[in-house]
């Protein structure tokens, strides 16, 4: 490897960078949940009587929108704590 860096350290460092990059996936759900919450607030303003239904629909939609972000989180966690690349050295 490069001078002074063992191949394990190199893989571990690159995995840490990869985990950080994988967490960029958190941007999308943030925007999506914000849009859902904004429209939910607008809907409550227009029809305050339907607040319970709007709340549950909004939470359900937000939970579904969150899934892609959690896939990124799963990749980051696997890279950090159950690294599959170290076994290939």
């Amino acid at each position, binding site marked *: 490897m490069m001078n002074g860096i063992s191949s394990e350290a190199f893989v571990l460092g690159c995995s840490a960078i990869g985990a950080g990059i994988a967490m960029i996936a958190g941007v999308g759900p943030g925007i999506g949940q914000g849009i859902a919450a904004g429209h939910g607030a607008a809907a409550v303003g227009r029809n305050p009587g339907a607040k319970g239904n709007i709340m*549950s629909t909004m*939470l*359900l939609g937000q*939970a579904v929108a*969150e*899934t892609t972000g*959690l896939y990124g*989180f*799963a990749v980051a966690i696997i890279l950090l704590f159950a690294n599959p690349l170290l076994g290939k050295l």
Partner: protein
Amino acid sequence: MGTGMLSQRVFLAQEVDIGITGYFHFEVGGQTLWITTTHVSLLLVMIALTVFALFANRAIKKANPEDVPGPFLNVIELLVELIDGLTKSNMGKRGARFSNYIGTLFAVILVCNISGLFGLRPPTADYGVTLPLALITFVLIHYNGFKYEKAGHVTKLFQPVLLTPINIIGEVATPLSMSLRLFGNILSGTVMMGLLYGLIPKLIQAFLWPVFGVLHVYFDVFSGAIQAYVFCMLTMVFIAQNFPEDEAQG
């Protein structure tokens, strides 16, 4: 080198403990099985729920229908009516008999999620707990699909013939995304709290108790309650979509 060691000592005051710890292991047929933190936490959650159920059962049996119910009985009635109303509004008349399962599911997931407050590692932060829960939902979805739509449950996969692969992947992805959602949310809370506890030295933690309290309320109680609600909601919606159209909205 010196600064590196110093910063390590400052910033990693304790070991970061977010993984699953195995306590002891035994072999069954050449396969090593571990008893881990997940088993212990799940057992404690089970004991807590069983004790609550026994007390609730005794309170209900002793109750006199003509008296005004006491505070404990009132809370039990509130919970049961909440679950009944939730299932009825989401699944219609046919869904009323699912309130047993939905109530059990909600209680288990909720208590599992907030067990982080009591110093346990939440059992739902283990994929081996959330995947079976999602698979039960998967079985229920397709059992009810075959029950109400008969062979139509299979043929509707090929409705637009071109979309067959997407339909099949969509069916398989349902339990996967449900289990990953619960697992990911609870694990992210556990990881954040574990990193924070590992980052800050124990002596300073004692002075920062309001910060930790607020974070525990957010990650364990708020996030956990939302995820328990969402899991039950998705279960109800997916099961109810197989009910016949005319009677689904009862």
